[in-house]
């Protein structure tokens, strides 16, 4: 019954390393999102994508990039990891459009990244 899968639950990286976080969904959703979750700050949107090869910046895109080469896969890339990027990263997907149902997000289990 898994619908949004994040490839890594826990990662430990060193400052300056390049980090890839992968997310795959099997619901044929057009929209995919990357959030980071920090205590006391809730969920903040990093990037989202509404179609293959399309991306839009969210609220905190600095230090991150994304890739969406296939509809089901959305990757988050940290070009040069820093300690302030230590966080829980959540991937989500949803249908596209302006209908109410398009706003229901399905989340993955999260990837906890620690940057030393």
């Amino acid at each position: 019954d898994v619908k949004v899968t994040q490839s890594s639950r826990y990662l430990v990286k060193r400052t300056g390393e390049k980090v890839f976080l992968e997310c795959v969904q099997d619901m044929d959703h057009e929209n995919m999102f990357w959030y980071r979750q920090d205590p006391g700050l809730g969920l903040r949107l990093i990037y989202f994508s509404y179609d293959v090869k399309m991306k839009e910046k969210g609220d905190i895109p600095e230090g991150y990039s994304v890739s969406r080469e296939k509809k089901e896969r959305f990757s988050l890339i940290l070009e040069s990891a820093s300690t302030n990027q230590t966080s829980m990263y959540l991937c989500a997907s949803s249908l596209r459009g302006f209908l109410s149902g398009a706003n229901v997000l399905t989340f993955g289990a999260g990837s906890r990244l620690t940057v030393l």
Partner: protein
Amino acid sequence: AQSVSQHNHHVILSEAASLELGCNYSYGGTVNLFWYVQYPGQHLQLLLKYFSGDPLVKGIKGFEAEFIKSKFSFNLRKPSVQWSDTAEYFCAGKKLQTGANNLFFGTGTRLTVIP
């Protein structure tokens, strides 16, 4: 700008107590509002949602929320909490007819239920 605020950061209740978690959103017009829950060690899941119609919406596990347009509020309620309700609760919302489908989340409320 759209925003969602949750004023309770940490709520501690005894089992069987009644629960009300506050949520306010900053925009008028037609909105979609949600409550998501994250149980310890688990992923975020939808608790309930409001799209239109009856302002009192019921979700899973006995939760309900009331959309009060005049107060820009969407508070979450449960008449009698259980230990298993210990979790973090996030309110989220979006104004319809605006761009892409990203939701705006509140900062979350951690609920601890003492047996």
